[in-house]
């Protein structure tokens, strides 16, 4: 009896999955960029940049994602008198909802990634700084050539974690009419009145997707450990033979 429900819901959820993954992916990529900028600022010496980063992280961590999403969807366009949608020749390429969702996830994940980046930079052994300084390298040179390669390697697990969190966060975006998985699930449930079966299937769908992501994470982590154990011939060399 409920096999027909699964058959009917599955294509809808797949459609929702496209939006879920798209928004989470774009969100984490740009969130990473923002997070790195903020993380470097927090670690660095420029007091002004540090203050801006603190402020940004404080706001984002201090408000729920659903409030951020509603704010970006309703208030932001009015504030700057723009439409968030991307249109071309009258055709809507990216709707306001989806754009608001991408912005929300970007800003949200960026704040948490900033903390990940900051603590990764912080955790690098101070001796690396000493060695760099003693050789006459500048602060920026040490940061980019020595510290960041070490820190970046360390953050991969935390970064992937944040990606998984962002994938689940997209479910909030149903409130601003983004047709992602939860939205599809809700609409199906409400129009067929099959609430519990529909929500159960939706939950299992999420579980399956996240489980796949967790397996991918394990594979990536294992690959990283392998490359670090091998001798790197001529890797990282500034001098080409």
């Amino acid at each position, binding site marked *: 009896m*409920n096999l027909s*429900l*699964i058959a009917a819901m599955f294509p809808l959820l797949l459609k929702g999955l496209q939006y879920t993954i798209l928004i989470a992916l774009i969100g984490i990529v740009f969130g990473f960029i923002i997070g790195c900028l903020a993380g470097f600022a927090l670690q660095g010496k420029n007091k002004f940049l540090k203050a801006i980063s603190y402020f940004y992280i404080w706001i984002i961590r201090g408000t729920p994602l659903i409030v951020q999403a509603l704010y970006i969807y*309703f208030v932001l366009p009015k504030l700057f008198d723009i439409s968030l949608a991307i249109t071309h020749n009258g055709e809507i390429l990216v709707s306001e909802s989806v754009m608001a969702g991408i912005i929300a996830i970007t800003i949200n994940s960026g704040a948490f990634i900033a903390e990940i980046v900051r603590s990764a930079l912080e955790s690098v052994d101070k001796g690396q700084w000493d060695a760099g300084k003693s050789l006459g390298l500048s602060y920026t040179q040490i940061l980019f050539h020595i510290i960041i390669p070490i820190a970046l390697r360390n953050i991969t697990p935390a970064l992937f974690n944040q990606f998984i969190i962002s994938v689940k966060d997209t479910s909030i975006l149903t*409130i601003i009419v983004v047709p992602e998985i939860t939205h599809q699930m809700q609409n199906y449930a*409400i*129009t067929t*009145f099959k609430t519990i079966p529909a929500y*159960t299937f939706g939950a*299992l769908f999420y579980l399956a997707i996240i489980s796949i992501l967790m397996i991918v994470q394990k594979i990536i982590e294992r690959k990283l450990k392998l490359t670090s154990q091998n001798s790197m011939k001529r890797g990282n060399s500034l001098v080409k033979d």
Partner: protein
Amino acid sequence: MKKILTIIIVVAVLAIGIFALTKLGNKENVEATTINTEKLEGCMEGITLNVATTGTFAPFTYYDENGKDVIGFDLDVINELQKLLGFEIANNEIPAMNAATITASITEGKVDMGLAALCATDERKQVMNFSDTYYEAGLIIAVNKETSPKEIKSLEDLKSGKYTVAVETGSASHLYAKEIGIKEDCIKTYNEGPIAFTALEDGKVDCFIQDGPGVSYYLKTKADTKLAMVGEPFNQEESPYAIALSFDICKKYTNIQEVINLALKELTDNKKKKKIEAKWCK
């Protein structure tokens, strides 16, 4: 060894999930009673009901200025019914939830009785019972005078697939929009009516289908609104407001539907209903 354990756990979780899917819908047997209707007044004394509303649909059910209490036509009707029939309201509280949640709750029997400008549509009748109609409504299209395309004049125009149509998730408008064939991509389902109204004011959608009384009230009371109604009210046959009663409560009290109907008739006969209408729906 660890791999085998993982596989076992995964299979177990999936199995439980599928089991839940298939086994749901079977409710335990309830003891059935009949309400003594010799005297209508106080005939439901000693019976406690879970009553819910939405608070998202003025003037029938909405939050007052302090934002604390839900008031409106429906709340007054509940009051009168309670005074007449004498039932208790669980926790002395009528929780407010959005249209999707209240429909689901009544379907699942978590809520016994719902009053929230609910339309007694055919689809809903498959999962819940309704009393007699206590208010005739109809659906109407609202547009934004500044941003909506001028071509939107009636329901037919919306079927073309060129315009985005907002509806409240789970409302009669939502189900109706799907029924008459408006394209999925064009239907934007907002969790609550007020959010959809705001979206239309901001020009984020081209139009909004909602119950007539709700739109009228909004237009009358919202200062500086850019919205207006177009076309004639439609779907009246499917938009009578009635009191929703869960299947479960009807199984428990086999004649509760009859009792509520008798009570509604009493309120009409003694002009109480007219008073409520005059108060809220001028």
